[in-house]
C-alpha cells in the first residue's frame, strides 16, 4: 500500500458489546478520496460487517451524514486528505441526537414522524380542475422559498443542535425550514394548519438560536434563519388575533 491514513470508527454491534467501541483501520490515502470512499474501502476489503448508510455519493440523497472529527458532515463531500493535516487519524461516529442501531447507523424515525406532522406538501383548500392547467409561478415567487426547498433531509442540523439533544420533543431545524418552504410558497394554503404544530413550545419556541444548524447545513438552507423568521410571523399573527377582533382567529 502506498501512503495510508488511519480511520478510527465507532463500532456498535449489540450482539457483541453493550457500549460502542473504537476500531482503527488503515486505508490508502488518495487526494481525491472522500471519507465515504474510505468507508467503502473498509467494507470491500477489510471488514464487510461495517454498517453505514449511503446512496448517491454526490450530496443529494442526504443519507451519509456522520460525525467526522466531531463535526456533522456529509461523508461523501468531505475530503479525507483535508482532515487532520491529511495525516489522520480521522474519527468517525454516528450523528449525535439519534439512537444508534448499529455502527454508524442511527434511528431516524423521530425525524420522519416530526416531518410528517408539518404536512410537507402543497395544501389547497380547493384544488382547481385539471383542465385549468398547472399552478404557474413567477421567478420572484419561487425565490420566496427556494432556499428552503434545497433541504436534503440529511439531519446534520439535528446533530449540531444542542436543544434537540436536550429536549427531544423539539421538532427541530430542518422540519421548521421545510414547513416554511411550503408556508412561503404562494401556491400553498396550509400555513394555518402547520401553525398549530409550529407555534407550540416544542415548535419554534424551544429554539434559543444557537445557530449551529445553519453553520453545518451543506445546502445553505439556513434553518436558524427560518425559525427566527417564523417567530416574527407567529408573534405578529398573535398580536393581530388579540388586537383586531375582526382579524382571523
Amino acid at each position: 500500500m502506498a501512503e495510508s491514513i488511519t480511520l478510527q470508527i465507532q463500532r456498535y454491534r449489540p450482539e457483541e458489546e453493550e457500549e460502542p467501541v473504537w476500531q482503527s483501520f488503515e486505508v490508502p490515502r488518495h487526494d481525491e478520496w472522500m471519507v465515504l470512499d474510505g468507508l467503502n474501502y473498509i467494507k470491500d476489503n477489510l471488514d464487510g460487517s461495517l454498517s453505514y448508510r449511503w446512496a448517491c455519493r454526490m450530496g443529494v440523497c442526504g443519507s451519509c451524514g456522520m460525525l467526522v472529527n466531531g463535526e456533522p458532515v456529509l461523508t461523501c463531500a468531505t475530503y479525507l486528505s483535508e482532515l487532520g493535516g491529511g495525516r489522520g487519524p480521522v474519527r468517525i461516529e454516528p450523528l449525535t441526537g439519534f439512537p444508534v442501531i448499529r455502527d454508524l447507523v442511527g434511528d431516524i424515525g423521530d425525524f420522519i414522524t416530526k416531518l410528517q406532522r408539518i404536512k410537507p406538501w402543497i395544501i389547497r383548500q380547493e384544488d382547481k380542475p385539471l383542465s385549468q392547467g398547472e399552478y404557474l409561478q413567477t421567478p420572484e415567487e419561487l425565490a420566496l422559498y427556494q432556499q428552503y426547498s434545497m433541504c436534503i433531509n440529511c439531519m446534520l442540523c439535528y446533530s449540531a443542535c444542542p436543544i434537540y439533544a436536550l429536549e427531544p420533543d423539539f421538532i427541530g431545524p430542518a422540519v421548521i425550514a421545510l414547513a416554511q418552504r411550503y408556508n412561503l410558497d404562494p401556491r400553498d394554503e396550509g400555513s394555518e394548519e402547520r401553525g398549530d404544530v409550529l407555534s407550540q413550545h416544542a415548535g419554534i419556541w424551544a429554539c434559543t438560536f444557537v445557530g449551529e444548524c445553519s453553520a453545518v447545513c451543506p445546502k445553505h438552507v439556513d434553518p436558524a434563519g427560518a425559525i427566527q423568521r417564523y417567530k416574527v410571523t407567529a408573534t405578529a399573527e398573535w398580536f393581530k388575533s388579540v388586537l383586531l377582533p375582526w382579524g382571523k382567529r
Partner: protein
Amino acid sequence: MVQVGVAAVGQTVNRINPKYQLYHPKWYRKDYPIFWWLEKFAYGKFIVREMTSLAVGYTAVLLMFQLWVLSRGQETYQRFLGFLESTPVMIFHGVVLAFLLFHSVTWFNLAPKALVLRLGRWRVPNALVLSGHYAAWLAATALVIWLVAR
C-alpha cells in the same frame, strides 16, 4: 427457519454480549454531556450571549431603582450617587457595561436573520437591516446624551 437465515449469510452470529437476544434490536443512547457548551466555540459563545442577558436585566432594574431613589428626595439621591461612584461599584459596572455591549452587538448581528423585509419586489439587504439597528441605537444614545447635557 432462523438457522437457515443465519447460514445463508455465511456466518454464525457472534454472541459475546450475554444480554443480547437474537433479532431483538437494542439501540445505544448516549447521554448528552453536561458541559456540552464547552465542546465547540460556537456553543460557548451562545452561552455567553445568553448569560450576558443577566447584565441587561440588571441594568434595567438598576435604572428603575435609581428613579425610585430620585423620588425619595435630593439627599437620598446624593447618597445613592456617592454609592455608585465608589471604586468597587465602578469596577462592577464597568464589567456590566462590557457584557451589555457584547450582548447588544451579538444580538444586533443576528437581527437580519429574523427580519426579512420586502418592499414590493425588493428584498431589503441584510446589511441595511443591520445598519438600521445600529442607526437606531446611535439615535437613542444621542437623544439620551442631549437630554442629560441640556
